[in-house]
């Protein structure tokens, strides 16, 4: 029961990764692509959280660090596109 639920959820996460990468290829403006990259980061966080169901390692430090880095990347690229300077 638990294993089936986890497998279905991981399949849904991988499908949403595919959909987000389609928007990453197609998106008309560069900010659509940035939004797709942010969604990809978010789905990768979900996949790492799903892996941590199987191996109870200290994998959550990676989730914390990747979430902060994804947010910093999005804000820096957005400010760079408007002002020509990320700071």
């Amino acid at each position, binding site marked *: 029961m638990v294993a089936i639920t*986890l497998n279905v959820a991981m399949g849904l996460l991988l*499908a949403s990764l595919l959909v987000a990468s389609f928007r990453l290829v197609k998106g008309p403006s560069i900010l659509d692509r940035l939004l797709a990259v942010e969604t990809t980061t978010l789905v990768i966080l979900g996949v790492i959280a799903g892996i*941590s169901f199987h191996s109870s390692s200290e994998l959550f430090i990676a989730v914390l660090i990747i979430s902060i880095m994804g947010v910093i990347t999005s804000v820096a690229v957005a400010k760079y596109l408007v002002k020509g300077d990320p700071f």
Partner: protein
Amino acid sequence: MEIASYIGSLLFLMGAVLVFLGSLGLLRFPDIYTRLHGTGVASTGGLSLILLGVAVYYAPRSISITLLASLTILFVLFLYPLATTAIIWAAHRSRVRIYNRTLVDELELYDSQELDLEAGTRKENEQYPDDD
């Protein structure tokens, strides 16, 4: 321990469904301002549900992963709206195309007022005086 496993995996499944619906909205909506609602609202909520599922799953096993997952929920709920707001500001200031059936564009008022991005405050402008 069994109950915690069931509830945790069910929360994980619900979060994965929300993340998938958010990505579907990212694919199907017409412009970037509506695509924000897919990824910025539904996927963030789905990710916090996933992390809540991990926290519930590990609650009887090891308390350190539960605390770390709760901390990550707080970080996600505080930081991801910041990123999506920055992206939408940048999109609106660089004039990304708006869907032609949009009714109200409230950011247009703020853009016409020459925001001072360095100070983070609004300059005084006689075009929109305060009526009191």
